[in-house]
């Protein structure tokens, strides 16, 4: 099956079998390894990417369902060699330890900040509720997102 979409700001024309998910397309079809496979059941959130600015579970959504849409993966967060403010904030505040949850956390947070530039702690916790981290205990992740919020004081 032929697929045309926008991937990290660039047009992308590719092929994928009909039973592939977005995660299969990214990792196996396009060799983008930033998006992780954790549970495969929609629970852990490490496969989160953005489709038209909204978070989706790459492990649950069929590749055919992102035809014509704009996908953003963790590889697409940096611009002209500069990290996204969220990435810098995560690095500076120790919000990544093993890093396995980090791509999903960053994209779920990116979607939140695009929609709500000045979130409260509760807003951040709710937006990240579906992203599990087995290392950090979440506090530093929430701090890092709040610090990167464009509307933060």
């Amino acid at each position, binding site marked *: *099956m032929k697929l045309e979409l926008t991937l990290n700001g660039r047009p992308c024309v590719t092929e994928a*079998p*009909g*039973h*592939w*998910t977005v995660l*299969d397309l990214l990792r196996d079809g396009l060799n983008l390894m930033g998006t992780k*496979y954790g549970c*495969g*059941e*929609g629970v852990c*959130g490490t496969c*989160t990417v953005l*489709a038209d600015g*909204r*978070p*989706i*579970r790459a*492990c*649950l*959504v*069929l590749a*055919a*369902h992102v035809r014509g849409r704009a996908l953003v993966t963790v590889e697409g967060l940096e611009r002209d060699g500069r990290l996204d403010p969220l990435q810098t904030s995560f690095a500076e505040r120790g919000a990544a330890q093993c890093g396995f949850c980090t791509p999903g956390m960053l994209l*779920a947070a990116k*979607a939140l900040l695009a929609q709500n530039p000045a979130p409260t702690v509760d807003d951040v916790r*709710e*937006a990240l*509720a*579906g*992203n599990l981290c087995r290392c950090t205990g979440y506090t530093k992740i929430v701090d890092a997102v709040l610090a990167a919020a464009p509307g933060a004081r």
Partner: protein
Amino acid sequence: MRLYPFDLVEPDTLPAALDALSPLDGEARLVAGGTALVPMIRLGLVKPDRVISLHRLPELAEVRRDGGTLQLGAMARLADIDTAPTVREGWPLLAEAARRVATPAIRVSGTIGGNLCYAEAASDPAPALLCLEAEVRVAGAAGGRTVPVVDFFRGFYETALAPGEIVTAIRVPATPAGARSGYVKFTSRSAEDRPLVGVAALVVRDSSGRWDDVRIGLGGVAPTPIRAPRAEAVLRGEAPGDATLRAAAEAAAREAEPLSDLMGSADYRREMIRVWVRRLLTSLRDGARSA
């Protein structure tokens, strides 16, 4: 891990979708958002030869008011139902329940039609739709039919759909004037879990404060989402004091048929029905919530 390989069919009209579903060779499944179907395939619970996607049928995705009725296309996403001003203003109970499903990313993909057709007992929107007395529009090779939501759930993960049928829309009658409503979801482990117990309620008071219309819907407490007619009967015509509310919660706990699973035992579920039915009804009585 890859999915069991299937052929994906992407019809762009409803008749073509019905055609793709009808041949009897092999197993065919519809996919809407895929948030329920994909894990089922991955876990090997279903092995369809053919998966028919509904994503190219834009008429199935609409969320619009039609006179007093809310028309929800089967492909309306839970996230869109939660945020649509039409729904928030006219059907706040449904918006509240849709917002409690799982996590943001699941709501962005998951559809209302998929939620009902999956027929999980622990659905968040189902108790709200039961209270709102919604109807399900179904299309089949032989034509269309309408099934009240209360008759749509037939058993554990079982619906009234016949093979080859597709849910096209959900029609929700107007929320009664002056109604107070609310949805509470109790989870025993983590906020984004499915409900251990979900309670939706809608009440309308007459001028003397008596409840002349009382509707209670429950999720997670029986093989399917259910209404709680005995609890409703305890309250109908009453201006309920605390004792009456407690009696209604007790009736709800008795008419439920909870199962035990990893989230909680049947006894614990029954106890949580008592607690959450009473708390929700108390807050509706005291005006802490309104529609």
